Structures are given as structure tokens and as C-alpha cells.
């Protein structure tokens, strides 16, 4: 869909354009599901498990039922449905056994929130506590308790995943490229180390919320803060065995998602409450604590990297082993495992690779998609490891990277050939290096070191990511011309803040030759009225919906020109148009306005032709394949967005305290559609990445109880945490099948930040860090080579703060 239009001829693409949604949001008029009430609506509350693993001995709801105003109570035993995105492993409410702290056990719908809360408090549950399995590596041991003893009975997506009944393995993604065993024999150095990070919460400012009305004749309407209305509908219908036309999903403004609202969440629970309450609408808003534990998080990862290097510094082989902690349910974690597996080597040319990526069930809140889809987690290890290897072989880290980058002619881990249009990782790395003054300190920085006594370190890391999506991922955009010649676009990609709707507006205006003010992209997606989109995930929205928008604009113009040709008694080839009218090129005064054509053209005598003008654009991913289950070979990537993060930090070598001075984010976005939005994604994702890197993470006690499910104990970055200086730079190597050459950048902004911080701290202090988040005390411990002390945080066996494991240098 690339059109080679010189930038100076583009009117809207690449130009400063206001967001279409900001005025509604700035005035408080944008309505989110959390703002909505319906006539007769009931309010719901959920009773959650205080245990990581326990048998439910009994649930007594009698006292709750007696409370005036309680209208419906549901418990797991009365529900015979199972949910699952890829592995169908989850009940709507726990049945027989609770599998994680915070799991939903019972729910109450009542006249008011207060009564619902009283109802939940009056439910008496007797548990028999069972020994939980908390660490993924322990869960792999032969005598580990099974989180899902019935795994063999579950259905799953067989084309992509491999659950292993009788174990805690929900999926094992394998990839084999070349021959690592043979390649290691030819290596001068082989270096191995293990890297870890804990689970993290997405923290959308609007917690998950849904209103469901289970109406007469099983007509179900769902208003949800979901990212993906059609996938939500599909999963809902599959779980309840319903026809898709019976279920309507409406998604208005959404207060952030970051992957956490991608699949199906609380909607089925709210639906069964509504059904039990006789079809009254029921609203459930997750509390902030429930957002951390009832709803899913990002998976914990243990990543083992073994790298073999040839004498000249080329990576010859890598063995990459990932242990993804899925928590109690597989949800997206199995696909995070798969997507991370096939890009596990980063933007580097690795001729021989062996990847084994396991998704492992444990008794913890479950993992799902989170901005970056595994890449934030594994790039922490991978890019720390690149520095480790560089140091071990005596090469400058950036030089080592540049020697090994993917480029035209090289192949990815899955065997995909890289071309000149795939993007330019080398340029990203060099640009980031230049922007932070890599390899040297400026005179200002030297003066700062002198003044503060702190040591400044700098690092540059690379990154890449392709959308993780099925080969048949598709979308539609419909353009409707209004009576005045303006157009309205309908699509089911959800704009929950990324700004894609504004980009679609610019693309439609560009292709139509209209002003942006003539193009509306309608907020509120409705599966009954809007066309299909697979999901709003994976940074694929701009590429797929952008292409569909171009096709819809072309279709609309073709239809308009056809009617104009008749109206003007001209040949279609002789027609041209501006933003108001279609005219005959050689007789411009012979013209008909879009307003005259919009709902059908009427000749002066009343005869009419045409009818309301509509343009339809459908786009489906081209040329992708499933991956071979044994070798991981195939074509999974519609596009790769490359990028680099450059980071400057100053560190107190005595205390381990540090300040992030500067972060530069560079992405090869193909083509900038909206400069301010690229910058917003870049900086927003960068700070979210710094949250992951510096302070966020789930902490459990030894019984698997989550200790920090709140903003008091799990901070996210505030304005105070913004680095002193931030910058975002776009490289534009056009994507041949991207709209105007563009590719996505929503997730990439977060990917390299943590490793860049770890590397810069090491550069400044020699602190060996292999676990993130990196808190000041972790830097101090690494510098002192001290093991964690047993305080309330570190007594968590599997939370933050592990000291660096030993580097394994194999004899060669």
C-alpha cells in the first residue's frame, strides 16, 4: 500500500494534526463505561480468594441472600462454562479449587454498590488450604502439584500450541535454526547467564468495567472497557455456545488498556449475574486491588541465554531458554511465549539458534498480553547479555551489536529473509548513540560528575518486534458519505489512547484529497453496526486499519466518480476531484459536488441515480504462515519495527542511588503519520518502560499471597520520575505494504528501556544486574556482591531482588 508520494506533496500524512478525541476528553464529556448507568441497573461485587491454592469445601450464601436489595448471587458450582483464548482452561468462577490469590469465587448483584459489598462480605466460604506451586522452575519438577490436573480434557488451538497433560506446561514453543551443537564447536567464546523479572500490572487508569444485560430470548448486550470487541464477542459466544448474532458488544471510550483488556475478562461473570437477576443490566467495576489480582498481569520470566561467538566477534549460535510463568491460566501467556520465542534473539543475525520457550502454570494471578508482548521482559535479559558478551570478548558493546545486526540478506530465527525495506536497525542504533553522545562525556556532563560526585554511564540497546497475530488477521473500514459531502469512518479497532483514529482520519483525508475536518472517525465500536476487526493489539492497528482506510477511500471515490460520470455525461477517466466536487478535467466548470452525490444524484427533472455513497476497505495480512511446531520455521511477521534506546544515568557508587538523566528513543516507523502521536507513544512507552525497569513488580509471600496490590505499595512513575531530558527520533525506511509506508510503534517504545538502564548503570559502576526492577538497594547489593537480606520484601521467594547468578564461561 506504499504510494511513493514525495513528502512535500502530502497534505495530511506526516503533518501536525490535532487529536480527534482530545476535546471530548478535556471537557469531561467523553463517556467511558465506568461513567454509564442504565435504567434499573444493578451493581456487582466479587468475592475473591485469599489463598493461592485451596479446595473450596463449602460456600454458604444464605446470609447474603437475606440482605434486602441483593438481587442475584452466583457461585462456581452452578456454572458449567469454560473460557480460554488459546487453551480453554478457566471457569467463570472457581469450581472446586481456587488456583490463585484474588481469583473470583462468588459474585453478588444488588441495588447499590454498598449492598453488593455487604452481600459479598456475608458469604461464608470454607477453604482447605493446599500447597501452592509458586515458581515456574519448581512447577516443572516431577513431584510438583498440578495446577490443572485435567489439562488433557481441555480444548486448545492445536495449530499453534502444545499443552502437556500430566505436567504444568501449558505450551512449549520450539525453534531450531541451523545446528547449534556444531556451531558451538567453532566458537571462540561461549557465554551463558540467566536473567529474571517479576510479574507487572498494566495499570490502565480506568480499571476493567463491564455492564451486561442478558435480555429476553438470550439477546445479550455487553458494554465493556475492552480493547477488542469482536474477539470478546467470539470468546463469549464460544463459552456460552451462542450464535454470534445474539451477542452485541459496545465499546465506548476506554481509559487505557496496554494489553490487559485485550481478550475476555469480567464480562461472562457479569452476564451470568444479569441472567440470574432476570435480565436486569448489571455493572461490575474492578477495584484497583482486583485489577492487580483478579484480572491478569504480565508474566514473570526466567531467561537463560547461551551465546557462542566466533573469533571475529560474530554471533554464531544461541541457545535461548525461556520459562514464562503463566500463573493459574494460560490466557495470552502461551502466545507471549510463542511470539517471544520466534524473536528471542533480537534484531541480530544469528545463523544457528535453538529456542525452547515454556509457558508454565503456577498458583499465581495469571499472565496476559502487556505492551511489548514478552519483548520488554526478554529484551531485559538479551540486551544485558549482549553487553556481557561484548565485555567478555573485549569488544566495545555498540560495535559488537553493529557487527551482528540483521540487514538485507540476513534471515530471522524463523527463516524470513530481511530486505532493504524491512527497516534499518543499524541506523536506529547509530542515531541513538549520537543523540546521547555515546562513548564520551560532554564537558557539561564532566562538570556534573565533578559537582555531584556521581558517576555517569551511557548505554545503547537495540530492539525489534513484529505483531503477534494469526496469519489470517483481518480488518475492515467503512466510509459513509454524509449529506454535506463530509465522511464518517466506522471501524472496530479501538482507540483507547494510542491515537490510531486520528491517524486513520489523516490517511482517509489524504487519500480522498479532503480536509481532515471533513473526516470523522466514529468513537464507540459496536459489533452490531461496525465491521469486523480481529483485535486492537500487537501494534498492528495502523498498518492493517490504515490500509483498509486507504482501500475504503478508493472504493468511495470510485463509486462517487461512477455516479458523477453519469451526472456529467463524461467518461470516468476524464474526471478529477477536489475536496468539494468532481469535475471534468478539461472543462472544470462541468462539475458536481460531493453533497449532490452523497445520498444519490438527482437530475433536475427528479430522475435519480446512485444512492448513498459508501466505501468499503477490507485488508487481511498477506503471506503469513503458521510456524512448524518442531522447528519454528515459517513467516509469522507482517512487519518488523526496529528501534533503539539510548540512556544516560548517574549513579552514586556508594549507595546505589541513581538518576536517569536522558533517554532517547529511536524507531524505524516506516513513515510518520502524526509526529506528535509518534512522540506521545515514544515517551509514554519509555516512561512505562522505566516503571518496569525501576520500581514495579509483584511481590508475594511464601504462601503466594500478593503483598502489593495497590498504588501505595506498587507505584507507577509520576511526573517526578521523568528523566531530565527525553527525546524521540523517527527513522523512515518505508514499509512496502504499510499505509504510506508506515508501521506500528505502540509497544516498541517500552522494550529496550530496562536493559539500557541496567547497561548504563553497569557502565558507570560495574554493578552486575540480572534482575529487574533495579531498585537502588539492588544496585548497592550488586556493588557489594551481597545476597538479598530477609526483609519484608525480599523474603518473597520469587519476587524482586535476586543477586546476579554466576556467569558461565564454557571452555572452548
Amino acid at each position, binding site marked *: 500500500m506504499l504510494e511513493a508520494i514525495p513528502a512535500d506533496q502530502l497534505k495530511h500524512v506526516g503533518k501536525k494534526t*490535532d*487529536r480527534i*478525541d*482530545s*476535546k*471530548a*476528553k*478535556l*471537557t*469531561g*464529556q*467523553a*463517556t*467511558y463505561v*465506568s*461513567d454509564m*448507568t442504565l435504567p434499573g441497573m444493578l451493581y456487582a461485587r466479587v468475592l475473591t480468594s485469599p489463598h493461592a491454592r485451596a479446595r473450596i469445601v463449602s460456600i454458604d450464601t444464605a446470609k447474603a441472600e437475606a440482605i434486602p436489595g441483593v438481587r442475584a448471587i452466583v457461585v462456581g458450582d452452578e456454572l458449567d462454562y469454560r473460557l480460554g483464548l488459546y487453551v480453554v482452561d478457566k471457569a467463570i468462577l472457581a469450581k472446586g479449587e481456587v488456583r490463585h490469590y484474588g481469583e473470583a469465587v462468588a459474585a453478588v448483584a444488588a441495588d447499590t454498590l454498598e449492598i453488593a459489598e455487604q452481600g459479598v462480605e456475608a458469604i461464608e466460604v470454607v477453604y482447605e488450604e493446599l500447597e501452592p506451586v509458586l515458581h515456574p522452575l519448581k512447577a516443572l519438577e516431577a513431584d510438583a502439584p498440578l495446577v490443572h490436573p485435567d489439562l488433557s480434557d481441555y480444548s486448545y488451538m492445536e495449530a499453534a500450541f502444545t499443552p502437556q497433560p500430566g505436567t504444568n506446561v501449558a505450551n512449549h514453543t520450539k525453534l531450531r535454526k541451523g545446528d547449534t551443537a556444531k556451531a558451538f564447536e567453532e566458537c571462540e567464546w561461549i557465554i551463558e547467564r540467566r536473567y529474571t523479572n517479576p510479574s507487572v500490572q*498494566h*495499570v*490502565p*487508569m*480506568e*480499571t476493567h468495567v463491564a455492564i451486561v444485560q442478558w435480555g429476553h430470548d438470550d439477546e445479550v448486550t455487553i458494554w465493556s472497557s475492552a480493547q477488542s470487541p469482536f474477539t470478546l464477542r467470539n470468546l463469549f459466544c464460544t463459552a456460552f455456545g451462542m450464535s454470534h448474532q445474539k451477542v452485541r458488544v459496545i465499546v465506548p*471510550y*476506554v*481509559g*487505557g*488498556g*496496554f494489553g490487559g483488556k485485550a481478550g475476555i475478562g469480567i464480562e461472562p461473570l457479569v452476564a451470568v449475574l444479569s441472567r440470574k437477576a432476570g435480565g436486569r443490566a448489571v455493572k461490575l467495576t474492578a*477495584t*484497583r486491588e482486583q485489577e492487580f489480582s483478579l484480572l491478569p498481569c504480565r508474566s514473570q520470566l526466567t531467561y537463560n541465554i547461551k551465546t557462542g561467538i566466533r573469533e571475529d566477534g560474530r554471533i554464531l549460535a544461541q541457545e535461548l531458554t525461556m520459562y514464562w510463568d503463566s500463573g493459574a491460566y494460560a490466557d495470552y501467556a502461551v502466545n507471549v511465549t510463542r511470539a517471544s520465542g520466534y524473536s528471542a534473539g533480537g534484531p541480530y543475525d544469528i545463523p544457528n539458534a535453538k529456542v525452547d520457550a515454556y509457558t508454565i502454570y503456577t498458583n499465581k494471578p495469571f499472565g496476559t498480553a502487556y505492551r511489548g508482548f514478552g519483548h520488554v521482559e526478554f529484551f531485559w535479559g538479551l540486551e544485558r547479555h549482549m553487553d556481557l558478551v561484548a565485555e567478555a570478548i573485549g569488544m566495545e558493546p555498540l560495535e559488537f551489536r553493529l557487527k551482528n545486526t540483521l540487514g538485507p540478506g540476513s534471515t530471522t530465527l524463523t527463516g524470513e529473509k530481511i530486505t532493504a525495506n524491512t527497516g534499518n536497525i543499524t541506523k536506529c542504533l547509530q542515531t541513538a548513540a549520537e543523540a546521547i553522545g555515546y562513548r564520551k562525556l560532554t564537558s557539561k556532563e564532566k562538570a556534573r560528575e565533578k559537582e555531584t560526585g556521581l558517576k555517569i554511564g551511557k548505554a545503547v540497546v537495540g530492539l525489534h518486534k513484529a505483531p503477534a497475530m494469526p496469519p489470517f488477521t483481518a480488518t475492515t473500514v467503512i466510509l459513509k458519505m454524509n449529506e454535506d459531502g463530509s465522511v464518517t469512518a466506522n471501524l472496530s479497532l479501538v482507540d*483507547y*489512547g*494510542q*491515537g490510531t483514529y486520528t491517524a486513520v482520519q489523516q490517511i482517509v483525508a489524504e487519500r480522498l484529497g479532503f480536509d481532515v475536518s471533513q473526516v470523522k472517525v466514529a468513537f464507540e465500536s459496536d459489533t452490531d453496526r461496525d465491521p469486523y476487526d480481529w483485535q486492537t493489539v500487537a501494534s498492528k492497528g495502523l498498518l492493517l486499519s490504515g490500509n483498509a482506510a486507504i482501500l475504503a477511500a478508493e472504493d468511495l471515490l470510485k463509486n462517487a466518480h461512477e455516479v458523477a460520470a453519469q451526472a456529467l455525461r463524461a467518461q470516468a477517466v476524464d474526471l478529477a476531484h477536489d475536496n468539494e466536487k468532481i469535475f471534468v478535467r478539461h472543462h472544470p466548470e462541468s462539475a458536481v459536488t460531493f453533497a449532490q452525490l452523497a445520498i444519490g444524484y438527482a437530475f433536475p427533472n427528479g430522475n435519480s441515480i446512485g444512492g448513498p455513497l459508501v466505501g468499503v476497505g477490507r485488508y487481511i495480512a498477506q503471506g503469513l504462515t503458521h510456524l512448524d511446531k518442531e522447528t519454528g520455521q515459517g513467516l509469522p511477521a507482517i512487519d518488523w519495527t526496529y528501534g533503539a534506546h539510548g540512556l544516560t544515568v548517574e549513579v552514586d557508587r556508594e549507595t546505589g542511588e541513581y538518576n536517569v538523566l536522558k533517554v532517547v528513543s529511536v524507531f524505524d516507523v516506516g513513515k510518520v503519520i502524526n509526529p*506528535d*502521536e509518534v*512522540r*506521545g507513544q515514544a*515517551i*509514554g*512507552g*519509555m*516512561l*512505562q518502560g522505566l516503571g518496569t525497569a525501576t520500581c514495579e513488580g509483584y511481590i508475594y509471600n511464601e504462601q503466594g499471597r500478593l503483598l502489593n496490590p*495497590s*498504588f*501505595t505499595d506498587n507505584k*507507577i*512513575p*509520576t*511526573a*517526578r520520575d*521523568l528523566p531530565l531530558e*527525553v527525546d524521540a527520533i523517527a527513522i523512515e525506511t518505508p514499509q512496502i505494504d504499510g499505509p504510506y509506508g508506515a508501521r506500528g510503534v505502540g509497544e516498541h517504545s517500552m522494550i529496550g528501556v530496562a536493559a539500557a538502564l541496567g547497561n548504563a548503570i553497569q557502565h558507570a559502576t560495574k554493578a552486575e544486574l540480572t534482575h529487574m526492577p533495579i531498585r537502588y538497594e539492588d544496585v548497592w547489593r550488586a556493588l557489594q556482591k551481597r545476597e538479598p537480606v530477609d526483609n519484608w520484601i525480599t523474603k518473597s521467594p520469587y519476587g524482586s531482588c535476586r543477586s546476579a547468578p554466576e556467569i558461565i564461561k564454557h571452555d572452548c
Partner: protein
Amino acid sequence: MREITLTINGESYTREVHEHRTLLHFLRDDLGLTGTKEGCGAGECGACTIIMNGAAVNSCLVLAAEANGSVLETIEGAAKDGTLSALQSAFHEHHAVQCGFCTPGMVMSATDLLRRNPNPSRDEIIDGIEGNFCRCTGYEQIIEAILAASKEGKSHA
């Protein structure tokens, strides 16, 4: 229940409220002023920030009964006669809005800041909005918007 009377965005309201009702829920659920958002209900995130008697407060930490006789300003009153305030316009122009859920609270905190300090430094702006979480923007474009509005010198109007 007790009766309270207060002024919100220049309009007077008299209602019966439960003693334990928070001001946030009073605004949102009893009056339908849903522009003010709830992010945590515990005074941590700032999404529910409004201006009460001339000072920014987390409305989730104030009881409606406590606000009896108060003068409140919420996001619904920020634009006058269909025109965005200079601060709102600056947010719009600087792309300081993404998902928009923190936006009303952020605008109210910034309004309060600019009234107290019409020409804040970057650091003073950071101080002023430090209590307002935003998960989307990384704050940079918000800070730039507030700086731009302060330079226009009419943001507190």
C-alpha cells in the same frame, strides 16, 4: 442522611446524602457529573481531582457532607461558553491527552497550580502534577502544555 447545599461550577445544588458518601460518588452518581474520574478510590492516583474552595483536592477522600457550603469546580466547568480554557487548548494542541482518563484530574491540578503560580518552572509544574498518575503520556507533553499555557498568562482565567 443529611441535607447539603453546595455550589458547583457556579450552580447551586441541594441534596440529601448519606454521611459516608464520598464527594466523588456524590458528583458522579448523584449529580451525574461523570467528568471527574475514579482511578483508585484511595487518594493515590489523582484522577478524581477537583477544586474545592480554591484548592485542589482528591474528591475520593472528601465526604460529601464535609463539602456542605463549599464552592467546587470540576472539569465540566473548565470550558466557558463552548470555548476551551487556555489550559485545555494547550493540552489539545500539545497532544497532552491519550486515553483521557487522567485528563480531567490533571487539568484541575494544573489549573490550581497556575492560579497559585502563574509562571511556574518545569520543576514547579512537576511538583504541581506529581500527585496525578498518567499511564499513557509519560507526562512530557502535559508539562509542555502547562508551560505553554502559563506563557500565555491567562490560563487561570
